[in-house]
């Protein structure tokens, strides 16, 4: 870390904050935080207006917690590898609140434009709204020129210039680089799916992992911070997806973290630290009797932090009419408790299973009984509409009786 003695002067000239980080950098190693996919301004239809507002705030809170982590870990700077904003055309409020959150991070922050907030015409990054409010210690990577973020640490980046890149979106960041000068640690910031992880499903060009590893091997790069994958993912010991700071979908396996990266002369240490507060859970229930219904109730009961949890519920099976009513009531009630409980329509196939005893219990006779019987037979014949009608009629008869 030969360049470290010069860090103070450089940083003081470039930043108005960060003395703590500089002191940390005075050690034999350099520590920084890696985050990505903040996607500020994102909306989730399943949350509803109230849940949406709280969740949006949670994503900002997580950013602020990154600042706290930086303080606690002595990180010299923070890098965010793409998709800071959900879109280039987010509302002004989102930008201003993001700027406020960024101010809570006391070390330099380097932001990389990703596919959501590409450096395209009309980009947020070149807008007066951003330029007029962005904190001074925040740097946006707008080209591929190396940036010495602190003495001895050089950052190169490959900002997205279009949402439709025509080639490996990381390549411009390091393709023409010579090996890093001795004593200089070089960090690549890139955004996109890895060819090795995309499974060939990506509709935009992917990042060639082999080339990245080669760049690490030949000493051009010492750490590669990637964005776009919301789950924290270690690709190699020096290639990482940090994942989103706060969960965005139930499919994400390890969201809500920030990576603390410490580079020493030859070693690297990466630690995942949770900063998110929300949960998005997917659950599938088999419902066929009272016991299974009770099990579902228990499952709901055991979930922690319900007000910050979204549940996507899939279910199949068939239930007698009284149990079906109970299931409806339970899901409705849990919807009030949790941030949101969504019946996953695509995987929701719970059908009413009225039996003669159900109908007898209602003590109906004459036309009412005949009507119910007709609906029951229609349901048995696969008429889904008859199921809903039967359930309703059952409830009305029960309430009327």
């Amino acid at each position, binding site marked *: 870390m030969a360049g470290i003695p010069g860090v103070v002067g450089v940083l003081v000239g470039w930043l108005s904050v960060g003395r703590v980080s500089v002191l940390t950098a005075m050690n034999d190693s350099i520590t920084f935080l890696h985050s990505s996919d903040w996607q500020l301004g994102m909306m989730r239809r399943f949350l509803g207006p109230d849940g949406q507002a709280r969740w949006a705030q949670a994503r900002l809170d997580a950013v602020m917690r990154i600042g706290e982590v930086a303080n606690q870990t002595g990180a010299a700077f923070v890098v965010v590898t793409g998709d800071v904003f959900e879109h280039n055309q987010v509302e002004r409020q989102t930008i201003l609140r993001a700027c406020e959150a960024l101010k809570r991070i006391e070390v330099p922050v380097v932001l990389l434009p990703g596919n959501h907030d590409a450096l395209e015409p009309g980009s947020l990054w070149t807008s007066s709204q951003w330029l007029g409010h962005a904190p001074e210690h925040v740097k946006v990577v707008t080209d591929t020129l190396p940036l010495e973020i602190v003495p001895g640490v050089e950052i190169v980046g490959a900002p997205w210039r279009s*949402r439709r890149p025509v080639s490996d979106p990381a390549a411009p960041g390091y393709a023409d680089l010579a090996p890093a000068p001795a004593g200089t640690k070089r960090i690549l910031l890139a955004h996109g799916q890895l060819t090795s992880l995309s499974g060939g499903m990506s509709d935009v060009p992917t990042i060639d992992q082999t080339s990245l590893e080669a760049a690490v091997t030949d000493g051009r790069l010492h750490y590669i911070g990637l964005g776009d994958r919301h789950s924290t993912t270690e690709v190699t010991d020096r290639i990482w997806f940090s994942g989103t700071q706060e969960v965005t979908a139930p499919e994400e396996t390890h969201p809500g973290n920030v990576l603390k990266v410490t580079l020493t002369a030859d070693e690297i240490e990466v630690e995942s630290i949770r900063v998110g507060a929300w949960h998005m859970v997917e659950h599938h229930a088999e419902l066929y009797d009272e016991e299974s219904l009770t099990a579902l109730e228990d499952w709901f009961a055991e979930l922690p932090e319900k007000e910050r949890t979204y549940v996507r519920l899939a279910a199949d099976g068939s239930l007698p009419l009284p149990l079906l009513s109970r299931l409806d009531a339970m899901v409705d009630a849990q919807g009030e408790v949790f941030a949101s409980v969504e019946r996953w329509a695509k995987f929701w196939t719970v059908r009413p299973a009225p039996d003669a005893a159900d109908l007898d219990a209602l003590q109906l006779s004459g036309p009412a009984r005949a009507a119910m019987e007709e609906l029951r037979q229609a349901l048995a014949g696969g008429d889904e509409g008859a199921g809903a009608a039967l359930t309703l009629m059952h409830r009305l008869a029960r309430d009327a009786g």
Partner: protein
Amino acid sequence: MRLHSLTLRNFRGVKDRTVDLPAIGTTVVVGDNEVGKSSLVEAFALVFDFPDDSKSTRIRDIQPVGQDVAPEVTVELTLGGRELAYTKRWLKNRSTELSIVDPDGRRQTWTGREAHNEAERLFAENVDPVLWQTLMVGQGQSLVLPTPADAEPLITAVTAESGTPVDGASMPLVTAVEHEYLRYWTRGGRPHGEYAKSAAVVATAELAAEQALKAMDEVVADIRRAERLALDLDDLSSRLGDHLKSVEDLRERKKATDEILLRRDSIRSRAETARARLENHTRTRLERERLLADVERFTKADAELAERRTDAETVARKAADTVHTAEAALAEVVELKDERRAQVQDAERLVSLLMDRAELDRLTGQQAELVDVRVRIAAAGTVLDGIKVDDATVAELEDARAKVVEARAALAAGVPEVLVRRAGAEAVELSGTGLDAGSGKKVPGSLAEDGEIELLVSGELVVGVPGQVEVKVRAGGEAATLRARVDEAVRREKDLLKKARVKDLPAARELLRKGDLASAELQEARRTERSLTAGGDPAERIALLAARLGIVEGEEPAEERESKQPAVEAVPGQMSLFEQFEPDENAFDFEDFEVPAPMDVAELAVAQRRLEDARSELAEVERLLADAEFAAAQARKAADEDRSEAQQARARAELAGERLTAAVEALEAARAVLADEDVDSAEVEATAEVESVLDELTAVQEQVDAAGADEVAGELADALAVATRLQGERDVLRDSLRTTEGRLEQSGRDGLATRRDSAELDLAAIRAEHESLKRRADAARRVYETLGRHRAEAQTKYSEPLQNRIEALGRSVYGPSFRVWLDDDLAVAERELDGARLRVEALSTGAQEQLAIITRLAISHLVSTGDSSVPVIFDDALGWSDKGRLRDMGALLGRAGDHGQVIILTCMPERYEHVPRATFIKLEA
């Protein structure tokens, strides 16, 4: 229940009356208004409803007005198999007594409140109130169709017969289903309430989302556009840079070739100069040749024209002489013509004078004749003015004369005629009154000697001889009257004669004849006057002619004056007939006119012949003058033409001279500059110089071509044009890019992506809510329709027994096409007759009443087999039916009595005369 008897005491207008009713069959209770028919029904109700101590106004109302008596009702009936005798008295001496005989013959009695309670209990147990109300039709209620759905006995009967139990237990569910359905749908099946609103909200949200999406799509399109523009701009800038480099290369090349081009331009300039000089020399040669030709041509023309001029002038002089001669001849003829014209004028004056004299003579004669005629007119006029007699006057006079003669004859016949004769000497004196000596002769006072006189005595005649005798003769009684008539006739005749101004009748006749003659004379004279003055007044013309001829006026001859006396004969008996005639003062006065002696006619003929001769001579001279004038004009015209010809020839000759002079001067001037012999050699020299310079130009052009100097300039110009175009395109691209970026900057400020996401999020939530509502609404509809269908089927089956009964009864009245449909309340909703199906509200009043009665009889029939049957009571019904219907309805009411108790209260028993086997009970007042 069966009613057996009702007894009313002190009940409204009824003092004490018992009506016994047969337990089975139809009973018609007949009574006039106010006899208490309706009180029977009322009494039955009150006896069960009000205890004897009731103070209800309904009880007080039944007490007869002004009577302090106790209303009392006794009813005997069968109820639930028991025979009841139930008596109740209100207001005074209140009491209630109930006597019951069980089917097994056991009798029980109650009194007071117990009796009331027991009766009430038994009634409630055995009489269904709905059925009772349904089958008891009060006054004015006969049109009301029964709605008997809640009548338990009917339900029991219908259920038993149809095998379909009434589904009363399901009613809360039916209500709930309907309530649920109406939350989402109208009865007509249109979305309603929350569901309908939700659809509208979805539409609004969709619109908002669509707009937000569209706005965002426009942003994306702008981004794409900007990217494309940036790429195009880069590409264009690159191409422009390359192009500008090639422009610079061309500029360098052009610099190198410009020198050769300058040299070529110099040689071109020299060649132009040499060519111009050659052209100058060639022009000079041609001009010299033209000048020489002109001099030769003009010299020849000048000689020819001078000769022509001389000839023309000679001809012109000759023509002038000819004109002079012709004009002298013309002057002579003019003079002769003036002479002849003077002669004619003299002859004309003489003829005119002579003709005036002849006319004067004629007019003078005419004037004399006119004077005579006017004298005759005046005389005849004067005669006519004096004669006052006409045909009528003569007739009147003749009549008066006849009357006188007639009166006299009568007098003569009616009075004594006395002949007095003087026989002696003694004087005989006559006197008396009313004496007539005949024809107006005067009666003398005495008679002459030997004189005699015949007298008619109409008064008294006294004939006396003085001193001797005096005889008095007196006329009889009528004499005076006859005398008076004669006097009257005579007086009338005298009056007429006086009026006509004649002496007697013959004079009048003569005067009438004279008047006719004068009238004829006047007409003849006036005719003559008119013919004489037809051509104007001769006197005026005579005066004119006399003045023109200068004749002096003289005295009129005296004899002519005398001849003007009127030639009218004196008329006998005419009174001063001509005394009033005076000559006409206005007549023409010839006093100063001297009539000239008549002219000799031959003199005029001679003068006229002379005039004709003079005129012939003048005409001849005028013909000569015309010929001379024509000849002179011809000569003048020919002379003018010849003179003009000479002038033109002179002008042409002078012009030719001038042109010749000018040509000679021009040639001389040219020769002074360059002699004729030098002209050709100068041109040859110039030609050689031109050829030399062109050779030089060819040589330098070969150098230009070799260096491509001409193309370089073009290429450079083209390249500069392309550069300009490319720069323009680049500027346009830049502007477009800036504009697009400006828009994007703005859309970034608007947060369009957030708006779109927000709108989509809202839409998703609203759609989810709507889908949920839709599922619920569809379910509600499905349940509603399914249940409704089953209920309708059940209802149809359930109502069938009553429907069948109504139709069976109705067909006996209306025939086989009669059908009815019942609603949920088992009330008749529609009726069909002869294929026409109508809502009952649409039926006529009579049909509604008949249907209401039929329905009640059908209900009664249905429940008649059970213990809970009740009598059917009609108070004053069938008021709306015609006779035919009354017959059919009567038959129906009679048959209804076969299996139940039917009680009809009416004041019009004839309505029910067709009820078979009916018991009629007459209530007397």
